[in-house]
């Protein structure tokens, strides 16, 4: 019955993939380990649906140490990032503030999406996708100067604790030095003490932390968080959570061939002030004045079935393609992100295994902070 190649399920001790500092924890917990972006990562620890629900209703724990972390330092760091990123780090004025955005090529194509933390004058930290780490760092280094240092932080692990009860339940496990005051952090801000950084950010649509810490301290924090009843969650739950939250996945919902205005990311592009010359600006201004030709929308399947990546979508405005599809445990039906021609269409059909299945076109997110944001009640 398998079209799932067994190679996805290897647990090979001699494989080329890298292991995070928490690999032994995952194996000991019985996780299904899969290669992902050059790393051996947990796909799930038994039931990805239960893990998904834990994050929506309570608290869940993710090892995301595969993501790239780099510190951008020096007196030129701010101006360097203002040229490199479509969002404007000059909007970060208080140390600890964070900003989501994209890095573009000259044509406005998306090289990666990332979070920038402003840590101190002349000191920023970026968190980038694992699969884009080398390409991003090469791109940055080629555009650097003597006034900028780019320091990759492979010495750090990254643990996300997500869910309505994640923050209060996890904070007791933090070191004394950083514990005080983190519960007062506002969304998209961070506190830093030594090599520890606690940020109120995430990729699930729920409240929570992303914690950066020395890799050799990660196993004891992980075990402490598990002992507080916080459920370990794998990549499968991370994917269904981010899809419900309407958050793009790089390489699927966006890539170098797509620009922010057709990726729901226009809000991350800072065209003001107009004299800031960031890479991709000219292309984006032209696209904006002409009007984007495509849009990234949400789909909610009207009947049973599961929408998958790559399936064809038909609308009154023309055909498009599913960029991410799956089952939404919160909505208990299939949802998707799809890129379709620009227009006003609000109904679509998805070609699922040879059948045309009806879907409503909606504006993501589907779920945020535990609340369902789309309903089909008045449409079916």
């Amino acid at each position, binding site marked *: *019955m*398998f079209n799932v190649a*067994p190679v996805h399920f290897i647990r090979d001790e001699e494989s080329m993939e890298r292991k995070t500092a928490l690999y032994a924890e995952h194996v000991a917990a019985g996780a299904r380990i899969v290669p992902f972006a050059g790393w051996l990562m947990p*796909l799930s620890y038994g039931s990805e*649906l239960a893990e998904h629900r834990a994050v929506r209703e309570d608290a869940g724990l993710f090892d995301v140490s595969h993501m790239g972390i780099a510190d951008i330092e020096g007196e030129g760091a701010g101006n360097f990032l203002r040229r490199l990123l479509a969002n404007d780090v000059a909007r970060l004025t208080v140390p600890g503030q964070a900003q989501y955005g994209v890095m573009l090529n000259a044509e406005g194509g998306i090289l990666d999406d990332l979070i920038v933390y402003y840590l101190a004058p002349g000191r920023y930290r970026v968190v980038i996708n694992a699969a884009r780490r080398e390409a991003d760092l090469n791109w940055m280094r080629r555009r650097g100067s003597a006034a900028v240092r780019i320091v990759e932080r492979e010495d750090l692990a990254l643990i996300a604790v997500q869910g309505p009860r994640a923050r209060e339940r996890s904070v007791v496990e933090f070191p004394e030095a950083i514990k005080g005051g983190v519960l007062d952090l506002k969304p998209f801000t961070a506190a830093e003490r030594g090599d520890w950084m606690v940020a109120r950010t995430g990729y699930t649509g729920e409240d929570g932390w992303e914690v950066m810490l020395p890799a050799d301290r990660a196993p004891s924090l992980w075990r402490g968080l598990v002992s507080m009843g916080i459920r370990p969650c794998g990549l*499968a739950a991370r994917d*269904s959570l981010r899809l419900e939250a309407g958050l793009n996945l790089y390489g699927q919902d966006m890539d170098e061939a797509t620009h922010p205005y057709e990726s729901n990311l226009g809000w991350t592009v800072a065209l003001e002030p107009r004299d800031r010359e960031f890479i991709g600006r000219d292309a984006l201004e032209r696209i904006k004045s002409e009007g984007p030709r495509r849009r990234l929308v949400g789909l909610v399947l009207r009947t*049973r079935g599961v929408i998958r990546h790559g399936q064809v979508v038909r609308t009154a405005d023309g055909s498009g393609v599913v960029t991410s599809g799956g*089952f939404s*445990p919160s909505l208990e039906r299939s949802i998707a992100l799809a890129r379709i021609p620009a227009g006003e269409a609000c109904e679509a059909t998805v070609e699922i295994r040879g059948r045309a299945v009806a879907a409503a076109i909606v504006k993501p997110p589907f779920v945020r902070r535990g609340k369902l944001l789309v309903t089909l009640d008045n449409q079916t």
Partner: protein
Amino acid sequence: MSDIPTDLHYTETHEWLREEDDGSLLLGVTAHAVELLGDLVYVELPEPESELSGGEACAVVESTKAASDVYSPVNGVVEAVNEALNDSPELVNQDPYGAGWLVRIRPATTGSFDGLLDAGQYANHIESAG
């Protein structure tokens, strides 16, 4: 390794067949398959009375990550399908050899299981497939 019931017939593609007292066959997927697939979220079942050809897809099980065809190991006719899976596909995860059965088949030929594996052979098969 999950327990493999000794009274069933197996395929290399991880289906199982159980011969019932009335000569009909129950078709399902193995615990090993379910373990690899993860949580099922949708099961597509054939129409009752539709004809099945051995080796051809007759159902689809979809997990959070992928859709997989389920092949009928025998020629026959669909006598019934497990309607409970429409609302509760997780039954396949919870009880793959019992409440998670998929299709009841009236086989064209009774008592013929040529080419199918017994529990020991199936255990060796999944062992060697790693």
